C-alpha cells in the first residue's frame, strides 16, 4: 500500500534536516504504529506524506499503491486515497461541516472520474457514520471544528475519514488531548474502518492508544529514522522502560 524508501526531508525555511532516511512499508489491511520521542520527526513524516508546504524532499521516495505521491498536490493525494487525521484540526468559521465534507467527497469522486453523490445520499451516509461516533446533528451543522472541544475535533476527524473512505489513513497523535471515554470512542471509530483493503499508520507517544487500536507492527522513530521495528510487544516495552534504552542500544 504505502512504501517509503530512504526519505530525507529538510525544513524549507531553515537549513535543518528532519527526516534522515526513513524506510517503511505498510501492506494492505495492516495497522502500523510509529512511536518515538519528541522531535524525532513523526509529525513531519505525516505532513510530508500529505503534502504540507514548507518541506523539501532531498532524497528518497514515497509511493501509494505504486504511484509516486511526493510530487502530487495535496488534493490529488487525497483523491488517490491518502488521509491524514490532524493532531490539531483547523477551525474554519463560516464553512458548515456538512458542506465541507460533501465538497471534499465530491471533489475526490470527480477527480477519480466517479459520479458525485447526491445531497440526500450524502445526508444518509453522514448521519449513519456520525451516529456511531455519537456526534450530534448540531455538530454536523456547525462550522468546521468551531466551538468543538478537543475530543469533538478528533471525532470529527474520524467522521471525515469514515465518510471519505481512504485507503491509507495516517493518524497523527489522535490520542492527544483525549480523555479515556473519548479515546475509546475514537478507537472504536477507527477499528470499524479496519478492513483488508485499508491500511493505517498510527503516530502516537503512548502505548495506551495501541491498547484500543491493536497494531500489527510497531516502529520506533528517533532522530529522523526508524531505529527499530517489531510486534505490539515493542510498544509495551517502550511504555515500561522509556526510549533511552532503545536509543542507547542503537547508538
Amino acid at each position, binding site marked *: 500500500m504505502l512504501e517509503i524508501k530512504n526519505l530525507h526531508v529538510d525544513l524549507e525555511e531553515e537549513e535543518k534536516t528532519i527526516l534522515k532516511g526513513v524506510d517503511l512499508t505498510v501492506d494492505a489491511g495492516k495497522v502500523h504504529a510509529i512511536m518515538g520521542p519528541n522531535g524525532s520527526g513523526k509529525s513531519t513524516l505525516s505532513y510530508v506524506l500529505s503534502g504540507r508546504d514548507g518541506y523539501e524532499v532531498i532524497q528518497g521516495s514515497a509511493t501509494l499503491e505504486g504511484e509516486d505521491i511526493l510530487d502530487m*498536490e495535496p*488534493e490529488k493525494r487525497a483523491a488517490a486515497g491518502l488521509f491524514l487525521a*490532524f493532531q490539531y*484540526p*483547523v477551525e*474554519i468559521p463560516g464553512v458548515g461541516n456538512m458542506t*465541507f465534507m460533501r465538497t471534499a467527497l465530491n*471533489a475526490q469522486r470527480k477527480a477519480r472520474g466517479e459520479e458525485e453523490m447526491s445531497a440526500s445520499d450524502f445526508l444518509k451516509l453522514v448521519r449513519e457514520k456520525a451516529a456511531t461516533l455519537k456526534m450530534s446533528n448540531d455538530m454536523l451543522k456547525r462550522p468546521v471544528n468551531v466551538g468543538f472541544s478537543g475530543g469533538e475535533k478528533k471525532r470529527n476527524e474520524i467522521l471525515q475519514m469514515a465518510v471519505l473512505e481512504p485507503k491509507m489513513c495516517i493518524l497523527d497523535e489522535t490520542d492527544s488531548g483525549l480523555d479515556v471515554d473519548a479515546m475509546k470512542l475514537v478507537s472504536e471509530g477507527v477499528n470499524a474502518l479496519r478492513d483488508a483493503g485499508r491500511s493505517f499508520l498510527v503516530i502516537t507517544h503512548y502505548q495506551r492508544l495501541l491498547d484500543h487500536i491493536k497494531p500489527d507492527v510497531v516502529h520506533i522513530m528517533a532522530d529522523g529514522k526508524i531505529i527499530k521495528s517489531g510486534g505490539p510487544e515493542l510498544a509495551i516495552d517502550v511504555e515500561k522502560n522509556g526510549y533511552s534504552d532503545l536509543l542507547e542500544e542503537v547508538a
Partner: protein
Amino acid sequence: MALPQAKQDATEARLSAVNTPDGAVWIAQAREAALARVRAMGLPTARDEYWKFTRPDTLVQAGAPEAALFEEDEAPIFDSVDRLKVVFVDGVFDADASDDLSQEGLTIERLADVAQADIHWAKDLYGALEENGQTPVQRPLAALNTALAEDGVVIHVTGKVSKPLNLIYHHKSTSSDAILHHVIKLDAGAELTVLENGPAAARFNKVMEVDVADGAAFHHVRTQGRDHERRAATHVFARVAEESVFKTFTLTANGVLTRNECVVEILGDNAVAHIAGACVGDGDFHQDDTVFVTHNAVNCESRQVFKKVLRNGARGVFQGKILVKPDAQKTDGYQISQSLLLDDDSEFDAKPELEIYADDVACSHGSTSGAIDEDALYYLRSRGVPKTIATDMLTLSFLAEAVQEIEDEALRYEINTRLEGWLERRRG
C-alpha cells in the same frame, strides 16, 4: 472661519450647476438651510482629514463622470423574497415597474408629492437627522443631498410590516447623476425591513434618514450593483430610541468608487444598533465605509462588523468610531474591520476610533489585514478540495462574520449566493 478659496470655488462651481427644487414652504426652508450648511462647510476636498483615504473630487464635480452600462448576468437579487417593489431608473421614479404601495401598517409616499403638501409629518425629519449628523464631523455631501433631492420615498410605519420593502435602482444612462432622499419613520413597536439594490446611476448621492421609536425594529439589507464604473456616496442617519433595534448590512461588489457613511445616534436605553458590511473588490475598485455611532443612553449594544476582500489593486477603507457619552453607562460596543488581501497590489486602510466618557462600559475594537490562512488551506486540500475551491471557501468563511449580522435567513442566503457568484466568475 472662512473656507479656503479653492474649496469655496469648488463648492460654488457645483452649486451653480443646479437649482433647488420647488416645493411647499416647509421643505423650501429645509432645502435653503441645507444649502447654507453646504456653503458654510464647503464640499469635501482631498485635503480634508475625513477624506484622507478616499478622493472626493469625482463625487463633488459638477457633472457625473461617464459610467458604462453593465449587462446583468445574474437573476435579480431578492427575487425569491416576497416583497413590495419601488423602482427608480437613474434616480427617476418608475410607477409602472413599482408595486401598488398601499399596505397595512405602512404609508409610502414619494418625496416629490410630499414636497408639495403644505403640512406633512416629514417636516420634523427631512434634513433634521442629516443636520444633527453634521457634528462633530462634517458630511457636506449629505447636506447637498438635502438641498437638491427632488425625489425619494417617505415612509411612515405604524405596525409590524411582514413584507420587506425593496427599493430597486436601475442604471440606464451613462451620464446620470441621481440624488434621492428617503425618510423613514417607525412608530413605537413598529417593524420594517428595507431592501435596496442596484447601481442607481453613473453617480448616486443618497441619504436615508431613519427614526426608530421606542420598541421599534428597523432592518436594512442592500447590495450596491456590479456596474464597474458607477460611483456612489450614500449616507444613513439613524436615531434610535429605547428598546429599539436598528440593523443595517451592505454588500458592495465592484463599482469604481463607493463611500458609505452611517451615522447612528442611540438615544434610548436598552437599544441595539448593528452596522455591517461585506465588500468584494477586483481591480479598479475603491470602497469606503465610514461609520459613527454615538451612545447617549444606558445599557445599549452597538456592533460594527466590516469585511473586505480585495484583489488586483482594489482598495478598501474603514473609518469607524464609537463615541460613548458620559451618561451612557453599561454600553457594550464592538467594532471589527478586516481585510483579506488576495495579492500584494491591494490595499486596506483602517481608522478605528473609540472615544469613551462613561466609566462602566465594555468596548472593544480590532482591525486586521491578511492573506488566506495557509493552515486552513492545507487542511481543506488534504481532504481533497482543490485549491481554487478551497480558496473560495475560505474567502466566504472570512466574510461570514459580516453576513451573519443579517438576521433573516432567506436574506442571508441571497447575499451568500451573490458572493458565491462573484467568486465563481473569478475562478481561473
